[in-house]
């Protein structure tokens, strides 16, 4: 479904040259969920942004659904892949109603039965038709993220690019959104690429994941291996440890 070969992303030139992504390759099969994990600045979001055209591809190949992507991306591409951003407080237009937010992609792609599609999309993300004419400020964080997911799904894409979809949300709301994403994937046969710094979230949603650091791929591992603590890489181990919560080191434990 998605094939990334030797992807490099470079920003700036000369002294300001930053190699944000260095030689990253991975493939994702149809219907699979693939995770990208790492600390901030590891280039995990940049990979995602390079796929959907928000960051330049300096070299390497990105093949989505059997076709190599072109710059600028075609309309067809956006019917195949859609993105959900981290902060639902920032990614929805504050002065557009839910109805207008959802009808924009439909208008761009010339979809006829907008009315039915909007109602269907709202239903899919577990919101009733009563939410259709609300503004973002009238919604809670979790509801906003549901709208952002509905907007991504309304064109019936095959691939969903999720950039930290739950890190701006409360723990209890995070569980709801994760369940929703899980259900939608099963119902619609979607392919996910999930970026997160939370190892537990990635392991929950994805079958395989790639650990990144300083723009390079550190290790690719199935999430089952992570569960049983089989990660070989030292950096992955430190991420696992960090996700277990705070542990006092020996010196302060004695104090």
């Amino acid at each position, binding site marked *: 479904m998605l094939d990334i070969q030797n992807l490099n992303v470079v920003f700036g030139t000369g002294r300001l040259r930053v190699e944000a992504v260095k030689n990253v390759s991975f493939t994702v099969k149809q219907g699979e969920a693939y995770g990208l994990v790492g*600390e*901030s*600045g590891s280039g995990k979001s940049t990979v995602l942004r390079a796929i959907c055209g928000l960051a330049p591809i300096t070299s390497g190949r990105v093949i989505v659904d059997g076709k190599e992507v072109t710059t600028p991306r075609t309309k067809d591409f956006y019917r195949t892949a859609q993105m959900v951003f981290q902060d639902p407080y920032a990614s929805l237009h504050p002065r557009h109603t839910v109805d207008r937010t959802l009808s924009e992609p439909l208008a761009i792609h010339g979809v006829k039965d907008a009315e039915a599609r909007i109602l269907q999309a709202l239903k899919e993300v577990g919101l009733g038709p009563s939410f259709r004419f609300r503004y973002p400020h009238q919604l809670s*964080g979790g509801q906003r993220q549901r709208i952002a997911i509905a907007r991504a799904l309304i064109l019936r894409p095959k691939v969903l690019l999720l950039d930290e979809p739950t890190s701006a949300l*409360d*723990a*209890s*709301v*995070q*569980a*709801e959104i*994760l*369940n929703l994403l*899980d*259900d939608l994937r099963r119902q619609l046969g979607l392919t996910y690429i999930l970026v997160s*710094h*939370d*190892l*537990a*979230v990635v*392991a*929950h949603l994805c079958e395989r994941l790639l650990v990144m650091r300083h723009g390079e791929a550190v290790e690719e591992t199935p999430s089952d291996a*992570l*569960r049983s603590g089989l990660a070989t890489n030292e950096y992955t181990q*430190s*991420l*696992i440890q*960090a*996700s*277990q*919560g*705070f*542990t*006092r*080191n020996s010196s*302060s434990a004695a*104090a």
Partner: protein
Amino acid sequence: MTKPLLEVEDLRVRFHLRTGTVEAVRGVSFHLGRERLGIVGESGSGKSQTGRAILGLTPPPGDVTAKRLSFDGIDLQTASKRTLRQLRGGRISMVMQDPKYSLNPVMTIGEQIIEAYQAHKKASNAEARDKALAMLEAVKMRDPQRVFSLYPHEVSGGMGQRAMIAMMLVTDPDLLIADEPTSALDVTVSMEVLRILDELVSERGMGLIFISHDLKLVSSFCDRVLVMYAGRVVEELEAKNLREAKHPYTQGLMRCLPTLKDDVRPLPTLNRDPSWAL
């Protein structure tokens, strides 16, 4: 434990709005010695407002009342603005959530720490400078000299947060209120920041109020945890006994987190019982 450092009894924070009065904090009581207390809750549960009310930082039109709100014998409600100013930053400090918004963008980090120090302690510029550098070193900055002369936009989130901790601890406060100090940071960086915070708190014997929405984190870091829901404390327990939480809300919060160990699907979600808010 001797006399508590901070006593809060029946704290209420109300906001009188055009649309009616919203009570953000409804009768919170607790006391704190030289220990680590965690306050956990979802957004809107009033945990941050509790922290702010202690410092008298409730934004207008907020209205704070309490039967008792005293810090080391000083009644914070009747204290003059002058006394409060001396307490704030001097004996009680607060670390805010996001270093991007809480550091002064047009002052170098060093100048800001010096300013905080000289506002409360009589010290020559050279003394304050040494103190600031020592503090930057205490928060494990690799190159304190360099960080000293950097502006906030030139440092990463983790460094900014450590700089803020340095600024807040330079005056040797007795009580530190940390409002989601690591929510804007990465897991690995936040562990580093917490470790620094932990060391400094135990070294200096400070009291710490740690406000967070991350139950797992709080329970591993603090001695005691208050769980807040809709402006009330629904449960208070020892952090190590968190597994034996009685209130359905606390239990729900514990269960809804995905864990690496076991694979539960779908994740249990919280069914909010309206009676919890009563």
